[in-house]
């Protein structure tokens, strides 16, 4: 995804002289072409993220379209107050791009795990949050973010993720893309967990359960039209993300569902939320290993969906009385 990001950013920058790139001293060689073709619009701001965001704000106040880029925890949590005050309070069109979303950099240890960013960025007024699932969605989300007059956060993976789209989807704030049809359950994959979710859908199919899969790249705003449709007609809707269950995409969907219920909506579906646990991993391991530790494997996801479907088919009982 990061190569697609660098490539698409260069294309956009060559179309729009207002686009400027600010890097937090990462992406060795990744931006060589950008630096060659637009040398005055590339700034290596060093390992100093608070300053980086402020510089981006100053450029945006002058009509430029800055892209602020480094590894997720450092471009979000490290400088959250700068994002809040400089970008969101002033409502400036700065696109914050975090590389290594979720467990992408699992092997680098807990400092580089990024499972809280969606929660932190989502609660900021004015902020749009995107979590693209493959290289094509990265390109589409970047174009969407840079075309809106508001701060945006785009959370991307790392490299060599499977690509699901043949062309760049027309992404928009609050958008999603359907990747698989199925009437028995709906799987809403948020971000770079999509390949696992596609495999989970295959595992379910072998059990005779046909699940639809959507890539829900729009975290804030949500694709509420999609939610309205799937919660009205399915028995189980599952959200799956490489992010803590506190405040992420699944939380956003739960908030939407509760609020709609208060307005009189009677959902047909139960909501099942899958994500990383409320604990840090301390042991070494790859992204695949880290996913197993949080129950984010195709089999584990298929098991949870199967169980939710079984419960949904049973008559309602009070678990305390039962």
């Amino acid at each position, binding site marked *: 995804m990061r190569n697609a990001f660098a490539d698409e950013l260069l294309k956009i920058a060559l179309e729009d002289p207002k686009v400027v790139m600010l890097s937090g001293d990462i992406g060795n060689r990744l931006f060589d072409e950008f630096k060659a073709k637009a040398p*005055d619009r590339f*700034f290596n*701001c060093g390992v100093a993220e608070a*300053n980086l965001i*402020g510089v981006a*704000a*100053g450029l945006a*106040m002058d009509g*430029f379209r800055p892209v602020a880029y480094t590894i997720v925890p450092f471009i979000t949590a490290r400088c959250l107050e*700068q994002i809040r005050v400089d970008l969101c309070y002033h409502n400036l069109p700065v696109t914050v791009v975090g590389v290594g979303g979720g467990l992408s950099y699992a092997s680098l240890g807990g400092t580089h795990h990024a499972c809280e960013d969606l929660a932190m960025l989502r609660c900021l007024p004015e902020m749009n949050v995107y979590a693209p699932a493959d290289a094509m969605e990265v390109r589409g989300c970047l174009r969407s973010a840079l075309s809106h007059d508001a701060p945006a956060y785009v959370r991307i993976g790392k490299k060599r993720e499977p690509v699901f789209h043949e062309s760049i989807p027309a992404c928009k704030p609050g958008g999603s893309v359907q990747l698989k049809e199925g009437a028995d359950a709906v799987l809403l994959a948020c971000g770079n967990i999509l390949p696992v979710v596609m495999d989970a859908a295959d595992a379910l199919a072998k059990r005779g359960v046909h699940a639809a899969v959507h890539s829900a790249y729009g975290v804030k705003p949500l694709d509420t039209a999609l939610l309205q449709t799937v919660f009205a007609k399915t028995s189980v809707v599952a959200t799956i993300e490489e992010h803590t269950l506190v405040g992420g995409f699944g939380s956003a969907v739960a908030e939407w569902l509760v609020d709609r219920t208060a307005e009189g909506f009677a959902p047909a579906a139960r909501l099942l939320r899958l994500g990383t646990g409320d604990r840090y991993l301390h042991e070494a391991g790859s992204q695949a290993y880290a996913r197993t530790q949080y129950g984010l494997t195709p089999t584990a996801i298929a098991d949870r969906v199967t169980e939710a479907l079984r419960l949904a088919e049973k008559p309602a009982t009070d678990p305390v009385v039962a």
Partner: protein
Amino acid sequence: MSATADLPYRLTDPDQLRAKADRLRAKVVALSHTAGTPHLASALSCMDLLTTAYYTAVRFDPAHPDDPARDRLIFSKGHAIPALYAVLHDIGVISDELLADYNRDGAVLAEQPAPFCAPGVEVATGSLGHGLPIGIGMALAGRLRGDDRRVFVLMSDGECNEGSVWEAAMFAPAQKLDRLVVLIDFNKWQATGRSREVMAIDPLVDKWRAFGWSAHEVDGHDHAAIAGILENFPDGSGRPLAIIGHTVKGKGVSFMEDDNNWHYKVPDRDAFLAAWSELGQPEDEALALLDAAMPAGAH
């Protein structure tokens, strides 16, 4: 923007600058008293740096406040913003009505400034350590646009506690931003203690010099000295400029000077009148101000 002398508010004579600063100090004391807002002593200490910068150097045309090539002054120590409101009122970009509404419910001018609340308030400050990075962004924007703007950032010594200040302090010289100047109101106090005791701030000028700035130490109440440095800005060194102004917190009002209680304390009627008189302003005007500020029906 061309000849700076064309700006209607331009002052060059140090006596005129001193009179202007005292006049604006009195206005700030009045704002603090009538609106009940704190941080008065912080506004008083920076007034000479601010007025010298504005009235001798900053190219900000009240008739064209959105000129893309204007000089930017970022008032980074946002808690003292009444000082800037007073300047902007004096040069005619903040109206009497707007200033009279200061800090009332629903007012445009708040105790710390909201984004784009008035021309000349370039940044919503109040959280320390934000002004300089944003100022760097504005200076880079000027370079990309090829205009001749300069960026002034007024900060406090307490603000220099913030790590973001030193991130920015390392970045600006790397970018050779010689059209950027930092003015530090070094009043030796922060909110709850002596700034040199809370953090090892000394030697402050050496720190900025070591970070690659063209750094100067001056009496922050000496208009001629401050103006003399700004007259040669950019100074040809290729480096950004830092002016460390040694100041007295609460400057201009004897019973507030170097008394950190006035970081939070709000002057009552007697303190306001005493300060107003010490600053050489006419008493009848003070009484009229008090009368106008009284709530309807209280007469």
